[in-house]
């Protein structure tokens, strides 16, 4: 993961004005071409979805046992049922809200802690050397297991899920912020020092903006982790939320319910991804536009 991030960051930073214009026109060309055949791309996508769902539906009605594998029409029925009549655990919106709240809280706290600690350690060789084995050790723990521990510590409520989301998000953001703070161009730091920057000025105007590409890149992955943390926390033990809904469906051998829960979480994740991309574009307006944004969409 970190390697991909490195590539994106370096291509974005290295772009010189000469090849920017070249890249831009190439980008426009690509866009123009895909623009003229956009309907074709979408049509083929639609065909793929129809073929996939159709063959699933068909085989579930003929060959495979829908009790284990369910089928699209049943999943759709379950979704309609949840949104119109509510679920066994109350209104579906309330459940989505709980899970989302846990994920967002864990994401926010985890990102903040990851950025602060990452940047501080990235700029302090001594601290980084002292803490390196502990951080590597903690990172090696299968952290998802901590969800069980958190339920014992914090109970069935929201806190234990926020904690699970936090430990997943924190490390994803921390390592990127750390690397980002390390890779700051030395000349930029020296130049700012000559111009009279204080330590805080350096942090604010040089190091944080430099590390922003890295931090933002990690946030895409981190929100996914936050959702996973919240849902797994709920599966382990909860009184509300999408994870509970899924684990109840599992208890009832209700494959359609598991699929339906999965679909809802996926939709939430896609919306969040879209919002983070918006934020990224806003924070990196100074960067040359280039085709990497298209690649990042994948």
């Amino acid at each position, binding site marked *: 993961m970190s390697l991909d991030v490195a590539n994106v960051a370096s291509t974005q930073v290295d772009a010189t004005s000469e090849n920017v214009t070249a890249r831009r026109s190439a980008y426009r060309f690509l866009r123009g071409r895909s623009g003229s055949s956009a309907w074709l791309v979408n049509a083929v996508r639609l065909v793929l979805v129809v073929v996939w769902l159709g063959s699933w539906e068909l085989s579930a009605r003929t060959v495979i046992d829908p009790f284990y594998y369910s089928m699209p029409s049943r999943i759709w029925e379950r979704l309609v049922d949840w949104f119109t009549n509510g679920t066994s655990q109350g209104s579906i919106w309330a459940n989505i809200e709980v899970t989302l709240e846990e994920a967002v809280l864990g994401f926010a706290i985890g990102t903040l802690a990851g950025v602060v600690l990452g940047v501080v350690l990235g700029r302090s060789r001594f601290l980084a050397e002292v803490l390196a084995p502990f951080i590597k050790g903690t990172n090696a723990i299968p952290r998802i297991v901590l969800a069980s521990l958190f339920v014992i510590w914090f109970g069935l409520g929201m806190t234990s899920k926020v904690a699970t989301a936090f430990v997943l998000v924190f490390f994803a953001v921390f390592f990127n912020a750390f690397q980002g703070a390390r890779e700051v161009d030395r000349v930029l730091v020296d130049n700012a020092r000559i*111009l009279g920057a204080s330590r805080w000025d350096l942090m604010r*105007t*040089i190091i944080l903006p430099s590390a922003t590409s890295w931090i933002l890149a990690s946030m895409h992955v981190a929100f996914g982790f936050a959702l996973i943390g919240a849902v797994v926390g709920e599966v382990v033990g909860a009184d509300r939320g999408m994870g509970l809904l899924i684990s109840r469906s599992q208890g009832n051998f209700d494959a359609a319910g598991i699929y339906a829960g999965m679909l809802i979480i996926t939709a939430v994740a896609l919306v969040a991804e879209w919002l983070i991309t918006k934020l990224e574009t806003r924070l990196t307006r100074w960067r*040359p536009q280039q085709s990497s944004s298209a690649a990042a969409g994948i």
Partner: protein
Amino acid sequence: MTPLTPVPAISLRGATKRFATRSGAPFTAITDVTLDVAPGEFVTIVGPTGCGKSTTLSLVSGLEPASAGTVEVHGRPVTAIPDGIGYMFQTDAVLPWKSVLDNVALGLRYHKVAKQEAHARARDWIQRVGLAGFEDRYPHQLSGGMRKRVAMAQSLIGEPSILLLDEPFGALDVQTREHMQDELLDLWSGTGAAVVFITHDLTEAISLADRVVVMTAGPGTVKETVPIDLPRPRKVEEIRLTPEFTEIYRNVWNSLREEVEITRARGASRVA
């Protein structure tokens, strides 16, 4: 120092810089460099690759401490970055995430000048380096030469009494470089700033300087100082066509050539 001689802007006495290398053996970048630069004097330093020219600047700027010898700026030993230093780096040092205006105003903002005043002064400097109309552009939208102008305005806006330039125009094409050299001379003349300018380009070194300092092959030390008695104000495109210039060029090149050959021979033996 007798009271009659004015305090030099920069004074190096036996300055030596050693770096620790990965193998543990110290690497000596410069050794026993002794050099004075008077206020208002333009000194260029030439020398073969790797002779420690940039290291000399980093000692004067206080970015690196000297391992031995003394480094003084305006008569005071350098312990941190001294006040009134301007430094133009070899590579781009403008902040890619700030507009031209904010880049030029950066030093003033660090010195707690109010935003409005800082921007007003920055606009003035942007005009002086010929970038009026580009205030809101980001560096990636500018050419290499324009980015150098931004860097120049960024360094000069603090009105430094000492200006250090580390091959600032090395990456530019010949026409842009000559143009920038003229502009630098224009902006510098009358400011009374002491300038130390590092370059590989002997023509550049002679056409800009009051004195050219030739350094030896690394670990570098001062080999020879050549005074350049060409009249000012100068136009760099014209001055290098004069017979006086050619004469000086021959002298300096003879001195520099030996050092370049030593460096080359070392490179060749390392390859072999």
